[in-house]
């Protein structure tokens, strides 16, 4: 596996950022000691289950509790909760007040929760679940994005729209009239399931005096706190949320945990305070939780015959499902990445999130950008063909340069030469030589394995969009414990991405000590400040910066007060000075609040200005082989080159890219969510296919660094980046292998062997 050279950390290193420091919580993960929520049980604990609607749309008419078969079964022994038991407000507090915790009468999607049950015995609980019959008066549902767009039926307002945006720059109509050619294309992407290996789970305990405590698998403890306080009408100090070791999230545990936490808490409340554990099994988790929004994008591009793009007219649509949840933000990010890393003087982007009677869609790594970047990077191939130049030359002709403006009139200033970045990627992947070689080999009719190579160029804006970070006003910091050890205080959660290690490295360098003296406090709303959610590739760049600033200030506080006077000091000396300070002053704790850098200007009203503080830029190259006998496409080799500001931890950073590329390969070629009458029917590993080790290609990861002024030691966010460019690079490679007849052949994903079969059959 070729990667950039990196050295394992040596004992004597004094600078930690840039080194592959060992994972902070690695040992317990390797020995099996790490505690995930299902590894924990409480005395007197009950298990909880959810009764859901089997049909996507209608009105609840009746609920019947049939008799149990076994002697041990009695409905008296069950805790049963419905919407009437909710002490506070029956909606999941997030953005819009539209999603109920428990349906009262209207059913808007299949799997919508109606009742909750709890019992000591898991088997009796399962028996009970099957004995409850919910009679729903069916209504005709709206189940596809297309149907919703075409208003086959109206289920919301006058046009089914949950949220819409319109972004305009220059004069697109004029550009389309004056251009030498107008290239049109339509691109579609499907649902994708996050498929974290650890299913969603929570344990809740209600206490009349102290309030509610919930432990579980989650990305955003403060989101859960906000939702549960609203559900119970309790003040925040009475709702304590604790993150357990979390087995993957990828956005699938951004907002959904608020629902599961609320459900478990309601059962504990009704059970007089007994602890209630709710762990979904795989089939429930896959059927009921949020997924990546399906998308439909229409491009109409004004291009001159020299290849210069003079206008882009883009329509970008997402299937939001039955409730808004995060769709407005996914839509926003999608549209802001829709023009790709290209300059165009005239733009019109019409973006809409549509309501359907599908389970609500939500966050999944990339968050709208994988959808819109798929479209533009496929569309660039169509434009290149029409103009008669190569893929790479078309991109070089149109790349954003420093001083150019984006669709929202943000002036690019990242000091990244995209032409050089492409050349670097082409060289590392041997692109030109392979393209010629494959062209030659593919021409032989007897060749049953066709090979292709394709590229994609893209960027990803880290952090919340626009004024998002300003409104979050994240707080994070450092303190020193009585043991003289440094503790990092932040609500961001470790879910495998390496946050514990990265924060420790950043703090270590800022304090001039080693990572071994630093502990990262477990995210617990009773203990850590609200540093915002662990999403949007913001943890290192935004919160890591707060940690760095706080750590620097802590060191200065010591020095300014005549502690730590030595130029260089050992960990022990540092620790001792801290203890002396605490003895005299009581506490040593520094918290910093996010302040938007003055040069970042965003107008929320006009939707104009600096959408993101900075972007990470990337060029990905996929090499595929296509078996014309089995119709299987295999990714043989993958080159992932990205500019990321500063690589904080090479092994962890590579790991993020490799894992993201694997998910992107799945997005393109394997992962298809199949629904029937509004319900997911392939809700299991058996026929929702994700990459196994045997499917994994050689992935070459390369980094370039153009430090971001406001990132910790220059670091930008990178977690979501790989999901944006992987799928289009693969589809571009397939198109290269098989040729294109301009009949929309490779413009939708997932693209399974049966899809290839039908394309080849038609041609």
């Amino acid at each position, binding site marked *: 596996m070729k990667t950039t050279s990196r050295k394992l950390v040596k004992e004597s290193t004094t600078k930690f950022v840039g080194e592959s420091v060992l994972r902070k919580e690695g040992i317990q993960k390797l020995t*099996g000691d790490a505690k995930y929520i299902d590894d924990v049980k409480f005395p007197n604990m009950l298990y909880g289950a959810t009764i859901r609607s089997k049909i996507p749309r209608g009105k609840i008419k009746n609920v019947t509790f049939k008799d149990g078969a076994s002697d041990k079964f009695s409905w008296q022994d069950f805790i049963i909760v419905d919407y009437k038991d909710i002490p506070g407000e029956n909606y999941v507090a997030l953005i819009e007040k539209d999603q109920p915790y428990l349906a009262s009468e209207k059913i808007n999607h299949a799997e919508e929760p109606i009742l909750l049950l709890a019992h000591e015995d898991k088997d009796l609980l399962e028996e009970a679940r099957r004995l409850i019959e919910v009679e729903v008066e069916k209504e005709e549902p709206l189940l596809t994005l297309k149907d919703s767009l075409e208003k086959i039926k109206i289920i919301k307002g006058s046009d089914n729209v949950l949220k819409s945006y319109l972004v305009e720059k220059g004069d697109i109509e004029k550009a389309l009239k004056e251009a030498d050619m107008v290239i049109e294309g339509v691109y579609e992407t499907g649902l994708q399931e996050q498929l974290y*290996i650890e299913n969603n789970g929570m344990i809740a305990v209600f206490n009349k005096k102290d309030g509610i405590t919930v432990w579980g698998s989650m990305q955003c403890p403060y989101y859960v706190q906000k939702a549960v306080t609203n559900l119970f009408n309790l003040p925040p100090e009475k709702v304590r949320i604790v993150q357990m070791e979390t087995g993957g999230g990828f956005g699938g545990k951004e907002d959904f945990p608020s629902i599961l936490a609320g459900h478990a808490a309601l059962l504990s409340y009704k059970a007089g305070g007994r602890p209630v554990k709710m762990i979904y099994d795989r089939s429930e988790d896959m059927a009921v939780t949020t997924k990546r929004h399906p998308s439909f994008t229409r491009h109409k591009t004004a291009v001159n015959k020299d290849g210069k793009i003079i206008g882009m007219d883009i329509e970008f649509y997402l299937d939001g499902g039955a409730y808004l949840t995060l769709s407005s933000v996914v839509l926003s990010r999608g549209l802001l990445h829709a023009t790709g890393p290209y300059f165009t003087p005239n733009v019109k982007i019409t973006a809409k999130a549509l309501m359907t009677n599908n389970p609500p869609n939500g966050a999944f790594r990339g968050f709208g950008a994988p959808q819109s970047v798929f479209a533009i990077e496929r569309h660039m191939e169509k434009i290149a063909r029409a103009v008669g130049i190569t893929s790479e030359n078309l991109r070089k002709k149109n790349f954003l340069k420093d001083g150019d403006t984006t669709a929202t009139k943000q002036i690019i200033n990242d000091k990244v030469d995209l032409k050089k970045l492409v050349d670097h990627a082409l060289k590392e992947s041997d692109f030109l030589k392979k393209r010629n070689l494959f062209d030659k080999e593919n021409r032989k009719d007897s060749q049953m394995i066709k090979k292709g190579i394709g590229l994609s160029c893209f960027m990803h804006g880290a952090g919340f969009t626009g004024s998002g970070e300003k409104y979050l006003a994240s707080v994070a910091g450092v303190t020193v414990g009585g043991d003289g050890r440094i503790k990092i205080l932040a609500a961001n959660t470790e879910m495998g991405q390496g946050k514990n290690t990265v924060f420790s490295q950043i703090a270590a360098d800022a304090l001039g000590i080693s990572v071994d003296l630093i502990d990262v406090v477990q995210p617990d709303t009773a203990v850590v400040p609200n540093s915002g959610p662990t999403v949007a590739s913001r943890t290192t760049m935004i919160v890591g910066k707060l940690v760095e600033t706080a750590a620097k200030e802590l060191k200065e506080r010591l020095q300014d007060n005549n502690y730590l006077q030595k130029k260089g000091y050992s960990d022990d000396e540092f620790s001792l000075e801290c203890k002396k300070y605490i003895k005299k002053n009581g506490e040593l704790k520094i918290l910093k609040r996010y302040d938007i850098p003055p040069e970042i200007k965003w107008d929320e009203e006009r939707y104009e200005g600096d959408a993101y503080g900075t972007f990470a830029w990337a060029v990905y190259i996929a090499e595929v082989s296509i078996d014309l006998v089995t119709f299987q496409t295999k990714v043989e080799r993958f080159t992932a080159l990205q500019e990321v500001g500063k690589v904080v931890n090479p092994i962890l950073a590579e790991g993020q890219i490799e894992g993201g590329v694997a998910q992107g390969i799945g997005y393109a070629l394997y992962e298809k969510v199949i629904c029937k009458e509004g319900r997911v029917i392939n809700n299991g590993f058996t026929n929702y296919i994700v990459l196994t080790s045997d499917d994994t290609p050689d992935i070459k990861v390369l980094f370039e660094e153009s430090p971001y002024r406001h990132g910790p030691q220059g670091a930008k966010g990178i977690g979501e980046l790989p999901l944006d460019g992987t799928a289009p690079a693969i589809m571009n490679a397939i198109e290269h292998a098989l040729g294109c007849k301009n009949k929309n052949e490779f413009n939708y994903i997932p693209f399974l062997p049966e899809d290839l079969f039908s394309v080849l059959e038609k041609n």
Partner: protein
Amino acid sequence: MKKTNKKKETGKKTRITCVINKKIYSFNVHPMMRALDLIREEAELTGTKEGCGAGECGACSIILDGKLVNSCLIPAIDLDGGDILTVEGISEKNKLSKIQKSFLERGGAQCGFCTPGMIMASYDLLKRYKNPTLKDVKEGLSGNICRCTGYTKIFDAVLSMKKIMKK
């Protein structure tokens, strides 16, 4: 250990005895109990995880009588007389084994949930192949799904063991 022939009444618990990580255990098992439940709940060894309950993801992998198996598919009753190794038995006296150390140094674990199963599968692979190639490793681990790493660093971790084994 010899297997005993016990009459099993429907729903009635059966007493079994087995060795887990070199320690002898005895349990009363319900006929519907899975080996996974016995290990996690009765023996309270929660290192082994449940990812799918259907034998697809490998998070529940253990070694039973020398064979790598999905403990979610094995009836607990079948553990009677068995010799079981779980992830807790891989490290000895709070010291990481060589394969665990290799995973730690090479970034083979991210969220950690597939890790215990992946360690068991790697351990099993390295017992069967003295000099595994990348192809052997890819095949040998194909029963263990990881969603975080893209497997690349897991391959690094297992293949780097060849050098260690040679020493």
